[in-house]
């Protein structure tokens, strides 16, 4: 437990506390009066209100669209299912700069909607909501669908034999078993959309602002640290509350359910109703997920064949935008992601192990704490790094290790969430037996735990890896120009005019998308039966 605690203390709690303290302390005295002051401002209230209602609306819409998808992925067998399940997860790890551009192409002028019906949704709240569905579809499909696939369908059939109608059987048998998973998924989607940054900034236009966007604006643009500190704490409280409720639903879910091998529950759809459902889900996936991704590919080819891709291999084509050829960003990204994954695995794995062995309120609190980085704005962490990690031996502000460290912060929650259920499922008696037979704790772990969790570990690693690849918010503050990551390189190319730069940005985005898709596809092959909550 010491390592994860130390890691979070040094690279998360301390920096965040320091930057918040800088904003809320004047001459060594806490100024809590600033809360009232800031929260009374009408424009801040507008931000709070918008943050809340768009998150509620996004969550509802995501559930509406993704729950049928969860069912289809859980219960139907159809060709290409594995590939498709990997593909719908790609958006979840794509950086928002890329997605924003794709969505503008789709919903903006000249987009598909515009051409068909003359409808444009850019700078409306609809663009934000649809992009949120795009990003979070996989959360629902994986969380709910993962469990759904393991529920024994015979229970429902038994209820029907006993005379219950189709709907009644579903409502009485399946729904109660599924409810905690649905609640957990809804809360995760709510968390991600409540703290939405890039989507709102790119698609919303200046009329819309979430708490996270406002924290960024107050910190990075205006250096209004007191306001930013108040908003950070407000967001902190909200995220803490969401996570507390989430932890509660997860515990409820861990109550014994009779689970079966998902391979046995899925079958080919039969009857017009099931085929229609399948077709409907496939159509929604096509429109909402594949189409935006396809737009990226189309623009990267842009009539010029592979010219943009070829240009990526030359540093000269950009005369100084990069000190190295943009293609090298791929290597950088992969290297950073490997290091970040290893850190996340060590920290998250140890945390998960500690959480399995111990119980109690304190440990549960720690469980939620590990999730907090998902809900704290990158700019707060980044600026916190600046003012805390500034003295030897921890003057890491200009070191490359900061990038993987920041990425690992986001990766750890995924590792913990993936490992925890599996570790908890390991029968403690096996371990005790090994100890009785004279095995050292290390040996017992190696012989008992490791073989059981190996696949979960791989899945966790894959997720941490993909998330690190796509991480943008924190990286952009610390990535150095001589080794930018893929998302940073994309953002830099988009930040300049000229056809070649734009085309290269699209080409790099496509490459990033493919790398994410391939790593996720590999994951599909090694998924365990109970591979956690994502």
């Amino acid at each position, binding site marked *: 437990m010491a390592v994860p605690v130390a*890691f979070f203390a040094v*690279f998360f709690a301390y920096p965040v506390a320091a930057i918040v303290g800088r904003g809320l302390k004047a001459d060594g005295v806490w100024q809590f009066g600033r809360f009232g002051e800031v929260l009374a401002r009408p424009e801040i209230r507008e931000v709070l209100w918008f943050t809340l209602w768009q998150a509620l609306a996004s969550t509802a819409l995501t559930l509406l669209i993704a729950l049928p998808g969860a069912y289809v992925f859980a219960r139907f067998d159809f060709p290409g299912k594995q590939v498709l399940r990997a593909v719908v997860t790609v958006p979840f790890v794509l950086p928002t700069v890329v997605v924003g551009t794709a969505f503008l192409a789709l919903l903006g*002028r000249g987009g598909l909607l515009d051409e068909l019906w003359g409808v444009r949704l850019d700078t409306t709240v609809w663009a934000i909501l649809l992009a949120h569905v795009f990003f979070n579809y996989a959360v629902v499909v994986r969380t709910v669908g993962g469990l759904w696939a393991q529920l024994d369908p015979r229970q429902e059939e038994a209820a029907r034999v006993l005379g219950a109608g189709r709907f009644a059987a579903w409502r009485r048998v399946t729904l109660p078993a599924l409810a905690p998973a649905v609640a957990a998924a809804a809360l995760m989607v709510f968390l991600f959309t409540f703290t939405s940054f890039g989507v709102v900034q790119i698609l919303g236009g*200046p009329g819309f602002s979430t708490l996270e966007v406002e924290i960024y604006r107050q910190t990075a*643009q205006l250096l209004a640290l007191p306001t930013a500190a108040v908003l950070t704490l407000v967001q902190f409280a909200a995220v803490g509350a969401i996570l507390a409720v989430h932890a509660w639903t997860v515990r409820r879910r861990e109550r014994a359910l009779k689970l079966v091998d998902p391979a046995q529950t899925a079958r080919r759809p039969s009857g017009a109703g099931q085929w229609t459902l399948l077709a409907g889900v496939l159509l929604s996936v096509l429109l909402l997920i594949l189409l935006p991704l396809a737009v990226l590919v189309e623009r990267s080819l842009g009539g010029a064949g592979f010219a943009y891709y070829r240009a990526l291999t030359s540093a000269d084509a950009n005369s100084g935008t990069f000190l190295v050829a943009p293609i090298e960003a791929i290597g950088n990204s992969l290297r950073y992601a490997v290091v970040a994954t290893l850190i996340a695995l060590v920290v998250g794995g140890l945390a998960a192990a500690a959480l399995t062995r111990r119980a109690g309120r304190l440990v549960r609190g720690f469980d939620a704490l590990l999730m907090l980085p998902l809900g704290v704005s990158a700019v707060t962490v980044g600026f916190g790094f600046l003012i805390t990690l500034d003295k030897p031996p921890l003057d890491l*502000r200009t070191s490359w290790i900061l990038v993987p460290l920041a990425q690992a912060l986001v990766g750890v929650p995924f590792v913990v969430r993936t490992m925890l259920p599996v570790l908890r499922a390991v029968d403690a008696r096996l371990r005790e037996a090994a100890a009785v037979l004279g095995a050292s704790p290390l040996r017992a772990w190696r012989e008992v735990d490791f073989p059981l969790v190996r696949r979960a570990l791989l899945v966790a690693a894959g997720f941490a890896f993909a998330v690190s690849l796509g991480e943008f918010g924190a990286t952009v503050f610390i990535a150095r120009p001589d*080794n930018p990551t893929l998302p940073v390189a994309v953002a830099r190319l988009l930040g300049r005019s000229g056809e*070649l730069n734009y085309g290269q940005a699209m080409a790099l985005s496509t490459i990033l998308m493919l790398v994410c898709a391939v790593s996720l596809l590999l994951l599909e092959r090694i998924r365990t039966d109970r591979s956690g909550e994502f």
Partner: protein
Amino acid sequence: MSTTQKAAVAAVAAALGVTALAGCGSSDDAAPGSGSGSTKGSGSKTVTLVSHDSFNASKDVLKEFTRETGYTVKVLKSGDAGAALNQEILTKGSPRGDVFFGVDNTLLSRALDNGLFTPYEAKGLDRVPADVQLDADKHRVTPVDTGDICVNYDKKYFADKKLAPPKTFADLAKPAYRNLLVTENAATSSPGLGFLLGTVSAYGEDGYQDYWKKLKDNGVKVVDGWEQAYNEEFSGSAGGKKAKADRPLVVSYASSPPVEVLYADPQPKTAPTGVATGTCFRQIEFAGLLDGAKNEAGGKALLDFLIGKKFQEDMPLTMFVSPVAKDAKVPELFTKFGATADKPATVAPDTIAKNREQWVQSWSSLVVK
């Protein structure tokens, strides 16, 4: 304290341990002495330049600096101009680098009021015109380049419509140009702020709000950042053409047209976009020696170099800004396709500092809401 330290050391050891495992450290061929943050001591052969994301320099030019002075430049970019400056203010006294480049006249007072820089009079400053030396009596900052924020237009659109492109601020409010202009949010984007300041300069502190009311009635569109405005909304840019953008007027830079030429394949004979030369606001970018710099001598040499002929002549095609040194030759591409502003608007940094917040606030409630 000792437990915290132990914890910290444990965490770092864990982090570095896995790093070694990954074998990543060796493949990371960054500038010498940058393997970890703690190695840059005094007398170091590395000089660190902190800047915003738009900073660029040719490799050859940076090598030339090393040849002349023996110092290697390490560049640290940290976000857009505002964010980069604010990070410097936060780390004041314990800076990450030696020289900061990229504070402009709209933010200059914020930097100076925070005492960010150590005075140094760069060698060769006599080749720089007095009107850009805004801190000439104290030399806390050195002017390095100028750039004009101006409305750009899509030549093809105006030719097809047989309509003359606008020239001045006043033109933009005319009915002929209804629903054609897209600009950036002055609260979040530096060209957006520059354009707002330009209108303040043209119409005065009393008149600019009326002017913006007219612009709003004339259908001006506001987006958050330059990227969206230029690549997604402006019909004249390469990105905009792909996006089937429908706004032929955008707030960008006087140097944007040459960029459209340089990054097109094949390069066209004329730029697809033009500049409304009566709508320009002049940005002056400065560099300064950071207070608490570890390599002060290297930092001073770098400042000399930034206004030296070599670097000044490199800037136009790497950062698309104009040199300040009188003896620097501007490349043909730049003069041929770029534009010169007719009397660019300026506002004194002190006036900007005093009123920036309030101007942006009233602008926001007027235009964005």
